[in-house]
């Protein structure tokens, strides 16, 4: 078994008096793709923000590669993790500048590498155009390329293929698969159970901020042990 990239212990996160996340224990293994599914308000995106270090947990501890990720985590550590959000927010710059942005933050340039990435995500013809003029699917591919260009070892994906047409969903999933081959640790939050099934090695179901079931993806989908998982997968869970 791989050593964990993240180890979460006694994690509680509250907004005011409302507890939005309550995770007694969770390990995310190095090189795996963990799918996180669950209804709206389950705490999926909150968990990603905590893993990225964008928010500080109210209680508990997150360890990244064995070291606490908090208080706040130094940028040298958080730079090993990056996030692609559901809505791709583009800088008011060219596609190339957007993709190079994370590298430049690190004081690095890799023109050939960036060009290869541009080609890989199918944006060669658009690379010098303004990123904000792209379609939603194209922007999401820029966002994926921008995250991958940083060379981060963990990719947090917050519904990266939501609201995209099937062709762009396929492209995004192809990019994710390539990252899996490269050994990137991926945490994929999705509403789309089919997507989780296609991409995740393990799947975690969160409901109301609490883990209901976690296990190998096939097991969670084919032989769920918890009644709420069965209800969620059957679409019977009203939310």
């Amino acid at each position, binding site marked *: 078994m791989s050593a964990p990239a993240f180890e979460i212990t006694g994690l509680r996160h509250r907004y005011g008096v409302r507890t939005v996340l309550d995770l007694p224990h969770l390990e995310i293994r190095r090189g795996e793709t963990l799918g996180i599914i669950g209804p709206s308000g389950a705490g999926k995106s909150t968990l990603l923000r905590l893993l990225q270090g964008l928010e500080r947990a109210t209680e508990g501890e997150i360890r990244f590669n064995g070291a606490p990720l908090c208080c706040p985590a130094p940028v040298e550590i958080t730079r090993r993790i990056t996030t692609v959000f559901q809505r791709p927010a583009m800088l008011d710059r060219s596609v190339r500048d957007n993709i190079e942005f994370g590298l430049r933050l690190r004081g690095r340039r890799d023109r050939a590498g960036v060009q290869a990435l541009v080609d890989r995500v199918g944006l060669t013809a658009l690379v010098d155009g303004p990123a904000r003029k792209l379609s939603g699917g194209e922007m999401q591919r820029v966002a994926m390329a921008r*995250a991958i260009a940083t060379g981060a070892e963990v990719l947090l994906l917050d519904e990266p293929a939501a609201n995209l047409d099937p062709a762009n969903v396929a492209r995004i999933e192809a990019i994710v698969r390539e990252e899996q081959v490269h050994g990137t640790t991926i945490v994929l939050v999705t509403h789309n159970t089919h997507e989780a099934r296609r991409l995740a090695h393990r799947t975690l179901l969160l409901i109301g901020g609490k883990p209901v079931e976690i296990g190998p993806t096939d097991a969670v989908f084919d032989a769920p042990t918890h009644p709420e998982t069965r209800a969620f997968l059957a679409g019977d869970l009203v939310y």
Partner: protein
Amino acid sequence: MDSILRALADPALLAIVALSFQVTGIALVIAVVAGVPLGAVVGLTHFPGKRLVTLVLYTGMGLPPVVVGLFVYLALSRSGPLGPLGWLFTPAGMIVAQVIIAFPVAAGLTQTAVEAVDRDLRLQIRALGATRWQSGWTVLREARIGVTAAIVAAFGGIISEVGAVMLVGGNIDGQTRVLTTAIVLSTRQGDFALAMALGIVLLLLTLGANAVLLQLQGRRR
């Protein structure tokens, strides 16, 4: 028309224009150098008293220039706390008054511009590994249209301002006479040709300065 053209060719007008630009230019640089970073910090951070700071800045944006002129006059007068500086009826005193007018405009509008940058983009910038400084600079750059508008508004507010510079500068010929105070004086003296000429110059200068700022903004259309 001939009289306006003759007035435009008057060498005295050049001195007035030069002093106007000197006073307003220095005041604008000071207001922008201090105001834009302050506005950015207030816009980008959360701290106790932020609402109070915002209230003060927004109130400052609406300060009547003549009231600013009055306070600066009193501060710089012989018995005032800044009297020993000897800046009353000098360009330095006029600069002080214009900085007080322009600073809250530059800071307040920069704050608004920074706060208007998409929150998701701010999160994304951090999630891509930006340090606090890198994040602030990137957001400020994203807000450049609004920041340019802040600078333009600050410039427009002081180049066309008359009350404060009249009170603090005294409109002394060859020393503290600027475009706006010269227009007031010419109009009172019935020299409408000179007043019109000065007005045309003021409009052209404002137009030119705004054109330069917009060019610097690098706005893509």
